């Protein structure tokens, strides 16, 4: 069964090709259903492979399916091969399942859009690339998928390309990703140079057996961290993610919450032996990059007014948690959080999409409020997502976040402190969002009075996607949109079950547990914390984490609902710590100067050298030609002297005398 792993990318690819040729004819909604079916078909294949792998003993849960030899160049032999092992199949499962749900949601959300089929064309291409990324047996196949998802991200962010801001956001995403890709490419080259292969098995094995020098391992890890920073939107390359909210909400849910942004975390987990084989400061660096990003993004999120921007920064922050986990050697926790985050973040984004849809494309939270009466299902599912992300037990987010904090404390106290503060802030800003949208007083009655379209719609494509209402009233979304919400809410609620900690009498071990499932993949790199103070005081930490979550919620309640405390939303946070502006200034001034200098250098030095050589030759030739006497007899004389010299050499030096 595992031999059919190639079907997993094949289904979305087939969907892509079909829609490419007949999508326009299929139209709305058949193209959408086709795309959804393709993704769910991949899920079914993935599920059957999962069952197959489950039935094998732990050491044998790995199948490599080679399609063909892709790059056979001398010593560089790279195959297009897929690796079906616990990690990749897990990724496939949640990517295709959640992806499928989002496809379904999108059928409803994009209804009426003139480019309906093209949307699903890109979505299927994206799922294809993502499956390539996670199923890749070597760095190059993963990179192929990596680039593919980057391209689809660009295509989808700039989907409504007639809007200037959308086109710019797409370009920004692509260029920033490219910077990260540079890191991945260098890591690939380094891997080939060090171990002669880009295959994970070879690379990891050389790291495990100690054949990989610590310096090389560190270099590879840092370079892949650069790539991960680009793809997974960490400092300093996170800047594209907030702007990426220009894309349609299903895009934000799928790509920028659940799947693509997890690519960096996945890659780092894949090479965990290499990380373990590198210098000690490398994982510490990874952990701190994640921690600071988490805190940084959380501060910005609490000052945002666009419903999607809050969630975007929240994503950056949560992925920061995952990267922090990787840095502390908690790979299982990172993947656990990745899975739970995928569920609740997709839920939150789709819920936001439902709200936007119901509010007729209004995205500013200050114009919302008291929506839970009008959109009960959306509100209920959104609240489930809120509780999950805040880390309230027994929802899934609590379990995964708690794991991460546990390992953080076992590693270093400052990391833990940053983590806890971020947890509080997370709970706070999510509470703020929920209150502003669903509770409190309705701010949208002014819209009904003025009959003016919300400011968002001014840049929208000319076709109005909804019927104009005589009276502005938010409405619930159609079933095709709230069914995925409900399913995701269920996952977010009970998702913690896949890796319940061994507390309160829950036994350790058990093959259904994520820790056991991922063990063969991460056993070399996973940190061992059973003897630390943190591990021994697990219950205390649990209590602390719950307190942090509830404290954040209470704080948010007090500020925004009860209005007891003044809201604190400094401009610094609202403007994202002026990070974007700093980059613009840098590129515009010192950066520009640098570019101009390089251009000058090229023109004067390089071209000058080339032209200079020609000029010198010409000058010399002119000088030489003026020395010519023109006398034939002189020329003959010189030839004669040459003959004498030659003869002399032969006779005297070589020969006879």
């Amino acid at each position, binding site marked *: 069964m595992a031999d059919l792993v190639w079907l997993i990318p094949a289904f979305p690819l087939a969907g892509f090709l079909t829609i490419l040729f007949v999508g326009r004819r299929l139209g709305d909604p058949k193209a959408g259903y086709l795309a959804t079916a393709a993704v769910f078909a991949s899920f079914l294949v993935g599920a059957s492979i999962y069952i197959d792998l489950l039935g094998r003993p732990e050491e044998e849960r790995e199948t490599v399916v080679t399609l063909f030899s892709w790059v056979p160049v001398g010593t560089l032999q790279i195959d297009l091969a897929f690796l079906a092992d616990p990690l990749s199949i897990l990724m496939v499962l949640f990517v295709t399942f959640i992806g499928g749900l989002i496809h379904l949601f999108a059928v409803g959300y994009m209804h009426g859009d003139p480019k309906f089929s093209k949307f699903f064309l890109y979505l299927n291409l994206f799922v294809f690339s993502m499956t390539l990324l996670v199923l890749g047996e070597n760095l190059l196949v993963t990179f192929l998928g990596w680039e593919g998802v980057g391209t689809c991200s660009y295509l989808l962010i700039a989907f409504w390309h007639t809007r200037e801001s959308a086109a710019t956001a797409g370009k920004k995403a692509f260029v920033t990703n490219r910077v990260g890709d540079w890191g991945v490419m260098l890591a690939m080259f380094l891997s080939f140079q060090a171990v002669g292969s880009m295959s994970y098995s070879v690379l990891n094995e050389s790291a495990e057996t100690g054949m990989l020098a610590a310096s090389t391992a560190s270099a590879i890890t840092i370079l892949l961290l650069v790539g991960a920073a680009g793809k997974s939107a960490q400092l300093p390359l996170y800047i594209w993610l907030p702007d990426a909210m220009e894309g349609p909400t299903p895009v934000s849910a799928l790509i920028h919450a659940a799947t693509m942004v997890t690519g960096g975390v996945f890659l780092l987990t894949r090479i965990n032996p290499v990380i373990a084989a590198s210098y000690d400061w490398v994982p510490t660096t990874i952990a701190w990059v994640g921690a600071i990003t988490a805190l940084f993004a959380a501060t910005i999120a609490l000052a945002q007014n666009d419903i999607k921007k809050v969630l975007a920064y929240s994503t950056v922050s949560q992925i920061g948690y995952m990267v922090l986990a990787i840095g502390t050697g908690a790979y299982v926790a990172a993947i656990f959080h990745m899975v739970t985050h995928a569920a609740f973040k997709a839920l939150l984004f789709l819920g936001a999409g439902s709200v936007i849809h119901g509010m007729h494309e209004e995205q500013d939270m200050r114009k919302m409020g008291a929506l839970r009466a009008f959109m009960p299902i959306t509100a209920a599912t959104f609240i489930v997502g809120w509780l999950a992300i805040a880390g309230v037990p027994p929802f899934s987010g609590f379990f995964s976040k708690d794991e991460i904090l546990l390992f953080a404390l076992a590693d270093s106290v400052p990391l833990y402190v940053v983590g806890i503060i971020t947890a509080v802030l997370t709970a706070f800003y999510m509470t703020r969002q929920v209150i502003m949208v669903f509770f409190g007083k309705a701010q949208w009655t002014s819209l009904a009075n003025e009959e003016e379209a919300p400011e968002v719609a001014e840049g929208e494509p000319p076709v109005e996607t909804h019927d104009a209402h005589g009276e502005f009233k938010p409405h619930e979304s159609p079933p095709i949109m709230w069914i995925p919400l409900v399913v995701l809410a269920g996952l977010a609620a009970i998702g913690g079950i896949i890796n319940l900690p061994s507390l309160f009498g829950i036994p350790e071990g058990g093959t259904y547990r994520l820790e056991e499932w991922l063990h063969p993949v991460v056993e070399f790199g996973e940190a061992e914390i059973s003897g630390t103070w943190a591990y021994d005081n697990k219950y205390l930490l649990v209590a602390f984490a719950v307190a942090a979550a509830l404290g954040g919620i209470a704080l948010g309640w007090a500020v925004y609902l009860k209005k007891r405390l003044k809201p604190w939303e400094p401009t610094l946070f609202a403007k994202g710590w002026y990070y974007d502006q700093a980059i613009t200034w840098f590129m515009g001034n010192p950066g520009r100067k640098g570019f101009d200098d390089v251009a000058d250098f090229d023109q004067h030095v390089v071209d000058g050298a080339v032209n200079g050589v020609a000029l010198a030759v010409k000058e010399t030739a002119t000088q030489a030609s003026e020395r010519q006497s023109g006398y034939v007899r002189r020329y003959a*004389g010189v030839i004669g*002297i040459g*003959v004498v010299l030659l*003869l*002399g050499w032969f*006779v005297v030096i070589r*020969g006879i005398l």
Partner: protein
Amino acid sequence: MSDATFLEYVVFFSAALMILGGAIGVITLKNPVHAALGLVLTLFGVAVQFVAQQAHFLAAVQVIVYAGAIVVLFLFVIMLLGVDEAMDLSIEPIPIQRPLAAVMAVGIVGLVGAAVVRARDALDINPGTGIDVAQETGNNDANIQQLAANLYGDHVLAFQLTSVLLIVAVAGTVLLTRKWPRSGDDARDAEHESSDV
């Protein structure tokens, strides 16, 4: 090698005298016609040396072609162009040309001479099948026959190419020396000449 006869000596040295005398005449005589006569003397001397070395055919060709055709051609041209006035040989416009020439000539002669003297008893590097000599084979035409067999056998391609070469040379020279009608310079030259007369 058998002892040489007295006659062979006489022949060798008189031929050598002719050769060197003619050569010195070529380079020292002021009048080009006299120089041409010196050349003829040299060519005859060389022909005699050829006979002395049993290369009869070549001696005949030497006289017929070189002395008979080429030198005659020289004389034709000298007369045609009217360059038969004597030149002043004492002046030399190009500086250090004469010492240069002397160095060169002495150098060549000296080095080649030294090489020859040293290599006198060297073994045959590539011994051939031997030259057929009339006395030994009893065939009076031995030399011509051997030469012909070699020429038309081993070197027939070169032979054909030389025939092409001769045709090309003739055609080329005719073209070179043609007076092209109606070209501006030629018309002016023709006027100039006719007005001189």
